[in-house]
């Protein structure tokens, strides 16, 4: 029976079995559990079960001062830690009306974009691993190590940087960083062409990705999916363009989007985004202004005015929004972390109807999920 007949078949006639793409499985890259009701190799119904790595970030935010919550922000989605800290810091600055000096804004843009490229490189390696190709993972990690060296030189950490502060960044960027970034941009461009030649144009990869699991723009909107998922379905939605923050309006970059909406479109969006991030970094490093990196009048004990404040950023996986409800105390009353992976995964159930197991794994990889990002 083809999957459509299976789904149409009345309840009694189907002999389906439940397969657990369990909490520990190479394809889930973390502890996501997919309860797949399957007929043979076709998926009749997929039900994601989350919560296996729930780490109570929102509960912790309610008994920590704003500054104490900063390390948590880079452990929600540890692959784009910079952009997540940027959102929390931005929300507090927006509420407390703190002015960030231009040099700090530029440094934030450079480090966020470097973090986006390193996150896309991890995605590229892990995605090819899901499709059975082992070698690209090592090449992608090799390039990523160069970014980690740059960021480690400035922030001291490889993965969970806690680099931004309210009103700027904690220490200035030295000449080695700017020179290293320029060298990295020059090094990375031919590498992207190599990935296009070796991986993107590989006939087996194209057969595995083209036309698999198409997702319409309407489905993305209904489920609130953002980032490369909605850009792969033809909608050029990018928070850096829609709600310009930090210094992004001053840079010229394009928002790549592909109308097909299949796994290949989402793949190409991320590959193209790496090239765009390189452009942003190049412009930002060239026009890096001089001056202080920390705002001067930052109160020791930060009290936000009562009411709500929201701040959204374009993280590697999509729109990350921090919504702080404060009651004029130094501890926030409620902090809501709107994470992109949760919304991106929520459309998996609808998009994976009738897929074969390998295609479901390809779809799961194309959504680029970080499981602690879902469970928070």
């Amino acid at each position, binding site marked *: 029976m083809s999957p459509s007949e299976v789904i149409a078949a009345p309840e009694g006639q189907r002999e389906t079995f439940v397969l657990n793409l369990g909490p520990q499985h190479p394809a889930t890259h973390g502890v996501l559990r997919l309860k797949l009701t399957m007929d043979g190799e076709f998926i009749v119904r997929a039900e994601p079960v989350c919560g296996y790595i*729930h780490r109570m970030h929102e509960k912790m935010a309610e008994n920590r001062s704003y500054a104490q919550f900063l390390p948590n922000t880079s452990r929600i989605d540890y692959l784009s830690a910079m952009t997540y800290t940027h959102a929390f810091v931005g929300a507090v600055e927006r509420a407390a009306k703190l002015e960030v000096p231009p040099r700090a804004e530029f440094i934030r843009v450079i480090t966020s974009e470097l973090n986006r490229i390193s996150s896309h490189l991890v995605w590229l390696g892990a995605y090819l691993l899901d499709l059975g190709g082992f070698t690209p993972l090592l090449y992608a990690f090799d390039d990523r190590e160069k970014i980690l060296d740059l960021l480690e030189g400035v922030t001291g950490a490889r993965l969970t940087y806690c680099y931004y502060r309210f009103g700027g960044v904690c220490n200035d960027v030295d000449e080695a960083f700017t020179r290293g970034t320029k060298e990295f941009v020059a090094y990375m461009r031919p590498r992207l062409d190599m990935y296009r030649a070796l991986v993107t144009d590989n006939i087996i990869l194209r057969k595995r990705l083209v036309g698999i699991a198409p997702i319409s723009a309407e489905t993305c909107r*209904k489920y*609130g999916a953002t980032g490369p998922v909605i850009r792969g379905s033809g909608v050029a939605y990018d928070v850096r363009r829609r709600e310009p923050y930090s210094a992004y*309006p001053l840079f010229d970059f394009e928002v790549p989007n592909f109308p097909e909406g299949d796994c290949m479109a989402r793949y190409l969006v991320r590959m193209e985004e790496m090239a765009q991030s390189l452009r942003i970094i190049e412009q930002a490093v060239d026009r890096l202004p001089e001056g202080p990196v920390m705002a001067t009048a930052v109160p020791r004990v930060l009290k936000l005015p009562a009411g*709500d404040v929201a701040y959204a950023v374009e993280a590697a996986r999509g*729109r990350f929004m921090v919504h702080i409800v404060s009651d004029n105390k130094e501890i926030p009353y409620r902090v809501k972390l709107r994470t992109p992976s949760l*919304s991106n995964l929520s459309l998996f159930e609808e998009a994976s109807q009738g897929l074969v197991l390998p295609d479901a794994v390809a779809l799961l990889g194309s959504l680029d999920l970080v499981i602690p990002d879902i469970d928070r």
Partner: protein
Amino acid sequence: MNPDSPQAHEESAAASAGQPGGNGASGPSVLVGPPALDQHTPLLALLEQGLASEQGGSSVEAPALAGKAVDFASRGYHVEMTVAPERVVLAAQLMDSSGFALDTITGVDWLAEGQMELLYDYFHPESPTRVLVRCRVPRAAPEAPTISAVFPGANWHERETHEFLGIRFQGHPNLTPFLLPEDADYHPLRKDYAA
């Protein structure tokens, strides 16, 4: 590939200061207060007109959907609507019809006032407008209708708000705990939650 050409940045780095535009249409304008930013006027007008037609359609008198414009620079959203619990689905349908997408559902436990608050954030894939819909429910028996029929994405947000704060969503297809273990009966994010 048709890269979206960089729009003219009509906004400088800091969002432009709100300047009071003309008041909305004459009739029973539900939207009190001027729209904050000029480029949202077309959308706000649509909202008003949408609300007016809804308003006209249903026979309820009180302005259940009192929306007011907010200064984006200090709040991060443009329009804020305070809604009675039973009008939540109406607000969601309105948002859906004008192309919005559900951002997230936040539950806040106002222990002192004996109330719980639901914040529905909406963003729009094509336009920069951000809308926040507020809804207050009594803390004793927190109930709210589900909007998962309109936005399937809300299914998980509602399950999560239910398990963390105990707000029941009527009509929700599967209101079991989402992040906590299946048999969890405690609501950790309530202010009076003792471990």
